[in-house]
């Protein structure tokens, strides 16, 4: 009974939050609604007994990814309303209906197939985190290491892409120095953009 109440409550909240994220014209509303939706999704993981996944969801998504988006939005002008050109809303609606129907067919296929058996069954004697650790470091060790390398590559790529001119602090420089630097910066940038 409580599971049903929790499911419907969090389902309504998550759908509402993500609808705001998709439909709003304010970037900050979208960001905050997105963060709230991520927290509400972790509730489903706790209901489903995936405690460790729920904690990871809160830490990684709400802690790291949302903070990274908020950090990235400092670079962009987000105070004004987003102006987005809409060419044909009917096409988007039609595409959405077709895609949603396809997704429903993909998603109900595990219900249709009956002979599914567990490869790594959940043992009741172990806690969720302990079972996750056992499986992750024995059966999924190679994908785990590959994911670690991928995260390292992504980190280096992020530093290289976003971290140019990080050695100069704009807050400690005088206005003339900043103007001089931006004047010197525009020239090589325009040359780089040519090829």
């Amino acid at each position: 009974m409580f599971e049903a109440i929790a499911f419907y409550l969090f389902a309504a909240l998550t759908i509402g939050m993500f609808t705001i994220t998709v439909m709003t014209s304010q970037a900050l509303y979208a960001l905050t609604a997105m963060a709230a939706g991520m927290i509400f999704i972790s509730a489903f993981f706790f209901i489903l007994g995936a405690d460790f996944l729920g904690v990871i969801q809160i830490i990684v998504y709400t802690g790291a990814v949302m903070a990274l988006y908020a950090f990235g939005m400092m670079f962009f002008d987000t105070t004004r309303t987003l102006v987005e050109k809409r060419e044909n809303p009917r096409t988007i609606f039609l595409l959405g209906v077709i895609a949603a129907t396809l997704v429903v067919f993909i998603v109900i296929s595990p219900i249709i197939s009956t002979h599914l058996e567990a490869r790594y069954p959940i043992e009741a004697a172990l806690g969720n985190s302990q079972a996750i650790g056992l499986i992750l470091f024995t059966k999924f060790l190679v994908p785990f290491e590959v994911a670690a390398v991928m995260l390292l590559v992504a980190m280096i790529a992020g530093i290289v892409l976003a971290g140019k001119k990080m050695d100069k602090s704009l807050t400690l420089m005088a206005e003339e120095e900043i103007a001089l630097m931006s004047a010197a910066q525009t020239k090589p940038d325009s040359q780089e953009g040519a090829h």
Partner: protein
Amino acid sequence: MEITLAHYLVLSSVLFAIGLIGVMRRKNLLMLFFATEILLNATNIGFAAIAHFHNDLTGQMFAFFVIAIAASEVAVGLGLLIVWYKRTGKIDLDIMTSMRG
């Protein structure tokens, strides 16, 4: 009133449809990234639900790797977005037509 696997899968597909609508109607690239995060989260709910109802940990494992991929996608994507914004001053999808596709 019992919550079954079908409830979770329907919820997952509803969230996935919301994310797809976002991908199709957004022109601002930052908002497009938000929509892709919704897509990834919707699939994670499906993975966790199947892991619970079929008593199998593989679904949760896949959800972990999806989260790792989402984190690295955000890092690289935001880096590219910042470089593009420094060059052009806009993050609109319509002006990214340099390949004349």
